[in-house]
């Protein structure tokens, strides 16, 4: 694969997707330390919000240590060059949250829907584009449908006003050939001024390989996470990806040693558990299940005695999508009852 001379914008997820792995308990100090470290290393875009996006604070997804406002207010004024993005899932967050984020100086909004439900993003994408934000349509669980379906949904988001479309491998299920096909079709069919991007999870250890395939197919934005801090087995580890891109002569504008230091000195010590491909994270990738279900399934295993792996496989079989965290406890109770573990 030859990518020599290409330029790509990297987008760090450790302070948003990483919130899943931290059960949304990252402190303001940690957030500020990592964000300023990344800013200093040259990271152009950093996402900051609850793991489930603006307004994600809930019983269902977990209450965070601080509000979205508090995190954004702490981080944004301290950035020298990095821009801050926020995620918004219609159905969880609303245009009220979007306005709040805009007022606090968030420059990039990523409006995320399941890969077949782009039409719920209309009011949010419309508003963000009208306010002049860098407006990204973020199609989640993109492994579940064909490239043609992704393209159809991407076109809807572009028609609402998105200037960038993401193909999102929320389950870490995709293999490079699938990434090439989907990203390739998007690049071929979307207008030239619309950027395309890829968001990977490392549940089959394909984060780096998939991201390279995406760049080859025309992606100019790649999500990853410093030290991989993210849901499931984490996101594409950015310090590793930076080293690979440097060897492939792709320019990112990021100082490799500095991002290595942020990973090793700041992010790894923050981890509640090592971000690695354990049995349950591997099951996510193997069964095609939303990565943030991981810790919920582990907790349900501890409480109800049903193996997390069995829960995750069944959730995959049922076609659950992002946001259905409530189904995990519900299913665990049902399975425990069937096994006679509960009355």
């Amino acid at each position, binding site marked *: 694969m030859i990518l020599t001379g290409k330029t790509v914008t990297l987008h760090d997820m450790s302070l948003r997707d990483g919130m899943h792995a931290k059960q949304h308990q990252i402190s303001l100090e940690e957030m500020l330390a990592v964000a300023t470290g990344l800013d200093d290393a040259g990271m152009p875009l950093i996402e900051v919000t609850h793991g489930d996006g603006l307004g994600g604070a*809930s*019983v*269902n997804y977990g209450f965070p240590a601080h509000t979205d406002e508090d995190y954004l207010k702490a981080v944004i004024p301290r950035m020298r060059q990095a821009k801050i993005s926020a995620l918004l899932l*219609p*159905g*969880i967050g*609303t*245009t*009220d949250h979007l306005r709040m984020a805009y007022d606090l100086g968030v420059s990039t909004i990523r409006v995320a829907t*399941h890969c*077949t*439900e782009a*039409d*719920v993003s*209309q*009011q*949010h994408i419309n508003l963000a584009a009208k306010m002049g934000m860098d407006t990204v349509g973020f199609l989640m669980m993109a492994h579940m449908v064909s490239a043609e379906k992704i393209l159809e949904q991407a076109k809807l988001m572009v028609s609402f006003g998105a200037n960038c479309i993401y193909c999102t491998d929320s389950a870490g299920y995709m293999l490079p050939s699938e990434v090439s096909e989907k990203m390739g079709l998007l690049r071929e069919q979307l207008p030239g001024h619309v950027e395309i991007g890829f968001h990977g999870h490392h549940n089959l250890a394909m984060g780096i390989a998939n991201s390279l395939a995406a760049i080859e197919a025309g992606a100019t934005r790649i999500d990853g996470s410093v030290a991989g801090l993210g849901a499931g087995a984490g996101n594409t580890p950015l310090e590793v990806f930076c080293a690979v891109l440097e060897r492939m002569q792709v320019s990112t504008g990021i100082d490799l040693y500095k991002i290595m230091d942020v990973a090793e000195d700041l992010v790894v010590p923050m981890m509640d558990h090592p971000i690695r491909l354990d049995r349950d994270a591997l099951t996510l990738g193997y069964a095609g299940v939303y990565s943030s279900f991981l810790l919920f399934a582990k907790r349900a295993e501890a409480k109800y005695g049903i193996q997390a792996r069995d829960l995750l496989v069944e959730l995959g079989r*049922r*076609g*659950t*999508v*992002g*946001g*259905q965290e*409530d*189904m995990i*406890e*519900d299913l665990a*109770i*049902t399975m425990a009852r069937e096994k006679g573990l509960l009355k």
Partner: protein
Amino acid sequence: MGKKLKAAIIGPGNIGTDLLIKMQRSEWIEPIWMVGIDPDSDGLKRAKEMGIKTTSDGVDGLLPHVFEDDIHIAFDATSANVHLENSRKLNDLGVIMVDLTPAAIGPYCIPPVNLADHARNLEMNVNMVTCGGQATIPMVYAVSRIQNVDYGEIVATVSSKSVGPGTRMNIDEFTRTTAGGVEKIGGAKTGKAIIVINPAEPPLIMRDTVHCLTEEEPDQPAITASILSMIEDVQKYVPGYKLVNGPVFDGRRVSIFLEVEGLGDYLPKYAGNLDIMTASALRTGEMFAEEIGKGAISLPTRNKGSEK
């Protein structure tokens, strides 16, 4: 046997048609008119085939017939904007409005919680909140009538096929209105609503999860009994309303896992979200009719002067 209230349905889409089928079985409400705006629409054709008078001139096509056909109640399944005008014109003629749109000009109505009050007060416009609200607010109330609820949260998961373009274009209205209902009618100090749309095939039956955080340690037996009795109350008009799991007690958290299967009248059974709206709206109309039949309230005096 009471005297049936004669009714009009505005909006011949999925909701309006499902409502019409249910209404034809009602002992208290008799459907007379179906109001649309497109003469070629399937919905109007269906209504005509079912022996219902139709107009494609919107609410203005109905107004001249309100008195001669003795229409006393109208069910509006159009959109929030259209409802404002429909309600004004029909209320003017003394027609009670049951609002299935997100307009919410009138008070929220969750039948097993506050319908009796609305009927007794002869509210001229009541709003049916949202499908997620109808499915979950009774449960929040079932907890809050036992002890104070600091926070109530509902997660409604519905099949992609059952969510129409109106809801999709205005999904924020769903979350805001439902959260408002969780507070105002459910009795939670703070409310939050989440909707998840799932495209799985075959389509999933509507699922709802209700989480309440009580102010003090929850009184488990009292809350459980209250929930079970409320489930029965909802089942009277939505037979497919089912407690799947729970209540789960975890510290101050009370979680309730529900499934809502529809009757499959016009909409498929999985579309419990649409069914619970039409069933709740019809139940609302019936309660008004029952109260009128009992003589507990009287129909509003008709203002003949405003008839065109």
